């Protein structure tokens, strides 16, 4: 069972997440490394988004949400009192289900993170960061002549790539993607998937998806969640061709979901 790797970026041990009295995640242990894209799949309400949001403590903002167990980033407990949550979220970036650019210019959208974290010494350096982030997100060619336009004026797919550029502008180590293509058309989806492919290896990427074909296309490792439990975790090719668990097999063959 490939639940542990030699050099994990994020490793979780016996994690439980509660919303009030309700247990949303039950005893999940997973390792995520830099070289692979990890996909979380499972039917609606299985807890995959909840688990993802506990990896950068976005669940902190939800009243009544509580996390038990250990979540380690480079061996450091992210729920320890010594961990600064603002810095954690800069290191563990996030891309959301619905593209949510700020109602500011394209430039300001990308420059916002570096500005608040003081990553650029001057205007020239900031320009440099913005350009390289937009280039990595595959958006530079489309927007380089209109960086002053509002980020919300872009198409849905462009907005989502802008959000990815915004996340990588602060030079994170991990990028969490919460169903990043569910609001996009097939062409825009294909571009995002290409982008994920290009970003692999530079960042540890975790993607939550409803779409099993997508998980098969973009990820090297897949975790299957059901009713808050981690059913199976392993090589993507293994999961899709030769699942060990019946529930996994039923899900990927479309028996339920």
């Amino acid at each position, binding site marked *: 069972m490939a639940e542990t790797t030699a050099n994990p970026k994020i490793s979780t041990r016996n994690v439980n997440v509660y919303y009030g009295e309700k247990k949303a995640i039950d005893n999940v242990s997973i390792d995520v490394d830099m070289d692979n894209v990890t996909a979380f799949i499972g039917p609606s309400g299985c807890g995959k988004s909840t688990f993802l949001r506990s990896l*950068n403590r*976005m669940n902190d*903002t939800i*009243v009544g949400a509580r996390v038990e167990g250990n979540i380690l980033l480079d061996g450091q407990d992210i729920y320890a009192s010594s961990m600064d949550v*603002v*810095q*954690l*979220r*800069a290191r563990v*970036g*996030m891309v*959301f289900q*619905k593209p*949510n*650019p*700020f*109602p500011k210019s394209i430039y300001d959208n990308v420059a*916002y*993170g570096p500005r*608040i*974290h003081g990553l650029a010494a001057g205007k020239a350096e900031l320009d440099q960061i913005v350009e390289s982030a937009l280039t990595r997100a595959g958006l530079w060619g489309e927007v380089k002549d209109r960086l002053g336009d*509002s980020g*919300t004026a872009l198409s849905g797919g462009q907005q989502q790539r802008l*959000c990815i550029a*915004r*996340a990588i*502008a*602060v030079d994170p180590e991990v990028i969490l993607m919460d169903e990043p293509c569910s609001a996009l058309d097939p062409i825009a989806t294909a571009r995002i998937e290409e982008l994920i492919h290009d970003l692999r290896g530079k960042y540890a990427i975790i993607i939550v998806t409803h779409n099993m074909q997508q998980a098969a296309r973009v990820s090297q490792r897949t975790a299957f969640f059901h009713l808050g439990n981690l059913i199976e975790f392993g090589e993507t090719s293994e999961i899709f061709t030769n699942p060990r668990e019946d529930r996994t097999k039923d899900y990927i063959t479309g028996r339920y979901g």
Partner: protein
Amino acid sequence: MSLCAWSNAIVKLMNNATIDPTPTDWNGAVMQKRIAKRYAAERRFKAMGFIAVALSTLFLAFLLFTMLGQGLRGFQRTEVAVEFDFPALTSGATAASITGPNADTTLNSMDIPGIVELAVSQQYGDQGSELLTSAAAANVRQMLADNPQLVTAKQTLWLPAESRLDVAYKRKGEPASEKTVAALEQKDALRSGFNWTFLTGADATDPSAVGIWAAFKGSLMTMAITLLLAFPVGVFAALYLEEYAPKNKLTDMIEVSINNLAAVPSIIFGLLGLAVFLTMFGMPRSSALVGGLTLALMTMPVIVIAGRNAVKSVPPSIREAALGIGASPVQVVFHHVLPLALPGILTGTIIGMARALGETAPLLMIGMRAFIPSPPQGFTDAATALPVQIYLWSDEVNQGFVEKTSAAIIVLLIFLLGMNALAIYLRNRFETRW
């Protein structure tokens, strides 16, 4: 899926068994009647809407018409031509003596009221001095100070007429005044002029000498205090309650209290101001400071409620986006939530401020109904406000105050329009295009 399809099929079978399968007759008489009825309902609704709009337009037109008809006359004054033989009257004052640093002393020593009285009685007989308003001497003094050359020759000066004469010239006045007006008009000694005194002066017992400036300045200062206090406190309260405060019984109670506070009659706030600011803290009576504090108490809940709604309407996805790249909660609030909520907050603020500007009752309670013969120089000086001034003038028996009241209402409305225009400008400036 299969279960679903089955149940649908069963329902279909049952329906076929019980309902007559004749097709709907879309052109039949019953259908046509339904259509006609629907059209009639549409027409009725449109007509009622039109009547409602027409009625409200009519009311507005009526208000503006009467206000302007009455009030515009308040900005005019009747002037009487008076001949001044300055060399004789001033026993040879020179232009040089009333210029330069000593001008004031010389003018003070000249007994201008006496000179005016003499000049008028020479021209119009013993009753002549009753033609002019009490402020006429001050006008003459101002004219001489502005143009010292006047003193070297014979001059005809137009001086403001006394109030009853003013009323008689503009519309129907007392019979005696009407007679005087007719006599003066024959000599071409009456004309209408713009009443600058009304814009620059303060309250007076003589309606032809009153001005609105003192009340305007009082309102301005009161509003400044109100805005300075109610806006920041209201906005911070709204932000804290929405973004930081834990959702529990205590915050629920605070919310209910604030909502109730916004509905408390304004005179209660006046009593509160009287009890707290005047009696307990011993602040100066009738001052713009206390007026502003009292109105701030009244305006704050309105700003808090509007502010909370504006903050609530900022989409949560923006907060998540900012938090997701490591913005601290304060940065989320000040970089994203507040700028997006500001247009809404400003709209609420202007509603609260407009209400405060027109408020009379609480100001009466804290003594701002005093007779204020000169504009307040500071926030602790005795002052009055526009609505209070209107209230006081509308109570006067003298006919001359009628048009002054309307004129003051026009000034108040212009103040209000100016404030609204500023708010709309600010709102459009901060409005984010999505």
